[in-house]
């Protein structure tokens, strides 16, 4: 255990992420509306040592009740439309929606039209779009941080 912690400290030093320079935070609630799991795998690593987004007060929260931003991945499937709307409706105002990945933006979506409900934009008002298939963790991080900076 001590070795592991020491290794992590050494890794942290070698990656040398800049210290947080913002006085703000953003609580993110993730909803997978039908993705291929690529966006999820990249999102997971944002909390890892190479990106450590939590140092900016940017974390994934366990309930939409705690969230500022709904981060939606995937082309919205017909079966995920209702759960997505339910998560949005549970959020307190002010609330924002971010569409993560090409599928969520309606780009190159594969599937049967009858099984899909449309882009995230067709279901919810979208405030932030993060393109990519999937977007790299650094790209997701940059987009979310710019969003914190730009939000009134």
């Amino acid at each position, binding site marked *: 255990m001590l*070795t592991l912690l020491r290794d992590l400290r050494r890794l942290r030093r070698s990656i040398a992420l800049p210290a947080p320079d913002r006085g703000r935070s953003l609580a993110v609630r993730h909803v997978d509306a039908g993705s291929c799991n690529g966006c999820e795998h990249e999102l997971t690593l944002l909390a890892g040592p190479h990106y450590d987004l939590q140092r900016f007060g940017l974390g994934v929260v366990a309930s939409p009740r705690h969230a500022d931003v709904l981060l939606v991945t995937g082309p919205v499937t017909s079966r995920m439309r209702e759960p997505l709307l339910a998560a949005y409706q549970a959020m307190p105002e002010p609330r924002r929606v971010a569409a993560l990945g090409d599928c969520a933006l309606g780009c190159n979506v594969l599937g049967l039209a009858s099984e899909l409900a449309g882009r995230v934009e067709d279901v919810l008002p979208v405030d932030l779009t993060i393109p990519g298939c999937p977007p790299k963790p650094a790209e997701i991080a940059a987009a979310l941080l710019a969003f914190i900076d730009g939000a009134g």
Partner: protein
Amino acid sequence: MSGYLELVESALAAGSRVGALYASGGSVRTVIVSPHGATQIAEAPLRDGRAPSIVGLAPAAAWDEREAADLYGIRFDGHEPLRPLVHHDLDLAGWTVPVHGEDVYQVAVGPTHAGVIESGHFRFHVVGDRILQLDARLFYKHRGLERAAEGQSADGGLAYVGRACAACAVSNSVAYAHAWEELLGLAPTADLARGRTILLELERLWSHLNDIGAICAGVGFAAGNSGFAALTERARRLNERLTGHRFLFGAVQVGGSRFTLTRDDLAHARTELEELRAESRRAWRELLFNASFQDRLPDVGVVSAEDGRALGAVGPAARASGLPDDARAAGRRLAYDGFAAVAPRRTAGDVQARLEQRAVELLQTFDLLDDLLADPLDASAAVPGAPGAEAVGVGLVESPRGATVCVVERDGALIRRLHLRTGSYANWPVVAHAAAGNLLPDFPLINKSFELCYACADR
């Protein structure tokens, strides 16, 4: 009609397993996989939309028949009750197993979860904290990929299997390419086989690192999770350096390969893999000596070899239960010469065994990559081999989560029917079985010890 059941029964008696079952045109087709990785098709023509069920012979086919019933309207004689799987329009009593008794209540979890997790619904029937029965309702992410791929060319259909799931993109794509190449009578060159084998092992590398970290996360062991997250990140960066994509998207083609490796690529990859091997061994040792972590693992989520076989468990989860099947040993069309499946010291079929299985397979993957990355790799086209007279092409590949079968039926140069049955699809019923009898707070751990994809099960 009875010939179908007899064929399936005799194949199972000879040690084969059901690799997939799907509806096609006027029949139901079952892909039978022999212990040596050979595949054959058993076919049951429909009569008035009905086919005999094989679930009595092979419980592993239960989900396949339920899916064929939902999506193709087929009734399976002898499959009672035939609960919906893909359809979500029935009420609770229609899709769950009834559990009655004093103090029995239900806990509903999902489809959205408290973290970065794919969407799916779990219905636990519990007494106190004890799980009596788990009904998993997936297919929230069903995109209709198989039906959407119909009418596509061999190249056009590739995206439908490749993007079915990011975590199995290479495995699914190679299985699809193999199915087409079987139809077209194409055989791989040595470089084509080696290139695909490298990609498959790079996919296994990041997946297994991710899965070990996920099990740490499953018990809230943050240091272990962070350590393996860092290694996963490095493995994905290596993928990007070698193929231009962190998940190796676009690296597999049908009928050939554009994937090349120069001496510079090899030198970079070998250095990086040596470091990754040393660091993952070091991090693994730390997990072994962490008593409070290790204490959570044994005797939790047990799957016996007998149950695993009946339910059709595949991949690391099956091997952790003492079932040695590994499609790599058959080495169909790939560069796995001399491959032998590995197993942990203790094949108890519990969370600990499934975790250890990842660790021993990870070391094996480093060894395999060490051999595979000895020489530069050139682009290569498949060459004419055995005549491609078959109407049905079958690809079989060992993904990081287990044997994956891809079936392609063609109409000339276009796809008439595509079916993809992944290791995750095979193992989801096993997760539900493993959860029964355990404590509800252990479910995240049990689930993570399988670490299945929802995306390629739902398609």
